[in-house]
């Protein structure tokens, strides 16, 4: 077992002050009140990592799934809920036990080659994903007549401002607020007019579409899996937990935070699918979420159209801040730079510069005339799906590292059974995706 060392590496600038009304130290009379307040203080990283995954790409994938197959893929979301939770629960345990980010752990335990490989593919996939987020912001605001040369730079400036405050709590609270705004997708789903019985039946009982299983159906399933579990989430939540300095005694609260985040994100994804399913129900064509908003407006009202467009922007903003931070944290951990949202820009220049560069570079690419955005959007979904199995394998091996974590924090046998099963399935799905993209002649044309 590893020698326990004191991580009193409180980065310069952090003052152990009393905090504000919501975070100040207090004494309470009962233990249940202590547990509730501790949970409220710990709450955040789990919800954010899950809901930020309902980004622009997810909006596109889930609404397309609804528009093409109605409610026939709702059962897959329910199946993905425990998968999301089990993957992120491992990240929670590793983050709390080590107090370090995922990139740093891979470097330290697997060596430079695997460390550089993991960092490189994280940065590549993250950057391309950021481009798709800004492409979605462009698309949404263009649908209401706002020029991309106004919307995209303003969005980038807002994203940089919300991070450069030198307060982790301020960033977290703003992001939690944005996550909770996504509840509106549930309202949009309800507006679609499906009965609760119909939704429940399709969610609890797997069923096939009218034409049976086609290659398009299989690949959309793979796209949904790849959208729901993304490599950046492993790096983001571990770094966020390390930045928030969660303690061993916070483990159960953090697990509950992650569970709430998993349920919330799946429910919101269901709302997105239901919104798309309205088009399926009324035999309307689907091209992209902005076009879908245009079709929903005349039927369900102009408020619905505006809501879809603004929720697209919200999803893109959430995705951008989380993905950019995962890149900045990972890069700074490996370089040995100070890296905390509690620090001011002058105290962590490398960390913040990485974040700012990621945001503005991605925004700039979207503004290039005739940039191949559609190719990037499709490419990043494929790339993320290909990279995911290797990211999860490192996590699984680290959670069995008794030399580092000791008996108390490693996976139990049932954890390993579940996780290796998930990894095997993800490898198989990624292999099919890779073959479909790289060797399309192997696959028959999609049936009608």
């Amino acid at each position, binding site marked *: 077992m590893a*020698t*326990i*060392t*004191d*991580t009193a*590496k*409180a980065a310069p600038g*952090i003052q*152990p*002050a*009393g*905090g504000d009304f919501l*975070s*100040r*130290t*207090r*004494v*309470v*009379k*009962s*233990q249940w*009140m*202590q547990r509730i*307040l501790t949970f409220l*203080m*710990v709450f955040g990283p789990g919800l954010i990592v899950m809901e930020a995954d309902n980004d622009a790409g997810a909006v596109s994938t889930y609404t397309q799934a609804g528009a093409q197959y109605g409610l026939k893929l709702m059962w897959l979301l329910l199946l993905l809920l425990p998968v999301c939770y089990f993957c992120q629960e491992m990240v929670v345990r590793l983050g709390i*036990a*080590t107090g*370090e980010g995922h990139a740093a*752990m891979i470097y*330290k*335990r*697997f*060596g430079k080659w695997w460390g550089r490989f993991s960092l490189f593919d994280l940065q590549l996939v993250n950057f391309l994903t950021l481009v798709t987020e800004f492409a979605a912001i462009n698309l949404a605001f263009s649908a209401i007549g706002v020029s991309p040369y106004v919307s995209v730079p303003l969005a980038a400036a807002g994203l940089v401002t919300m991070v450069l405050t030198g307060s*982790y709590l301020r960033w977290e609270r703003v992001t939690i607020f944005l996550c909770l705004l996504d509840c509106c997708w549930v309202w949009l789903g309800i507006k679609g007019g499906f009965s609760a019985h119909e939704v429940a039946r399709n969610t609890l009982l797997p069923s096939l579409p009218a034409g049976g299983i086609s290659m398009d159906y299989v690949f959309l399933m793979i796209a949904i899996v790849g959208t729901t579990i993304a490599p950046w989430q492993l790096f983001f939540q571990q770094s966020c937990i390390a930045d*928030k*300095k969660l*303690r061993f005694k*916070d483990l159960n609260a953090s697990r509950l935070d992650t569970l709430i985040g998993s349920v919330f994100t799946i429910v919101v994804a269901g709302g997105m699918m239901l919104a798309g399913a309205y088009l399926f129900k009324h035999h309307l064509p689907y091209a992209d979420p902005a076009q879908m908003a245009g079709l929903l407006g005349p039927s369900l009202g102009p408020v619905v159209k505006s809501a879809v467009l603004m929720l697209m922007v919200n999803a893109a903003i959430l995705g951008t801040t989380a993905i950019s931070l995962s890149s900045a944290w990972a890069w700074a951990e490996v370089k040995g730079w100070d890296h905390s949202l*509690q620090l001011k820009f002058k105290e962590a220049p490398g960390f913040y510069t990485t974040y700012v560069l990621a945001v503005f570079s991605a925004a700039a690419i979207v503004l290039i005339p005739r940039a191949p955005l559609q190719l990037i959007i499709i490419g990043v979904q494929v790339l993320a799906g*290909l990279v995911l*199995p*290797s990211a999860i*394998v490192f996590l699984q*091996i*680290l959670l*069995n*590292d008794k*030399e*580092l*974590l*000791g008996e108390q*924090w490693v996976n139990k046998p049932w954890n390993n059974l579940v996780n*290796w099963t998930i*990894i095997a399935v993800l*490898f198989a799905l990624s*292999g099919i995706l*890779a073959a479909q993209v*790289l*060797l399309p002649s192997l696959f028959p044309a999609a049936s009608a």
Partner: protein
Amino acid sequence: MTSQTETLDTFMDLESAHDHRAGKGYVVIHPLYDAPEAKCSADHLGPIKLSLGSRIALTAVRGYLVAIMLMGAYRVVAMAIARR
């Protein structure tokens, strides 16, 4: 006890502080403002010792990456030939 003593200095509510000193309460401290705790460290451990299952998994990852790169190379060559 040391962290609890330091925490008392940050109390804004004197009545609550008195209850704590009298042992009548439960302390709630935000993680950002708590004293640092000892963590599991890998700094002096060196490379991880892999079990058989872990070696198989990493070999599978390597094989998977090689297979993808070969498929990609094949696709590029096939597209180049098709364009001639």
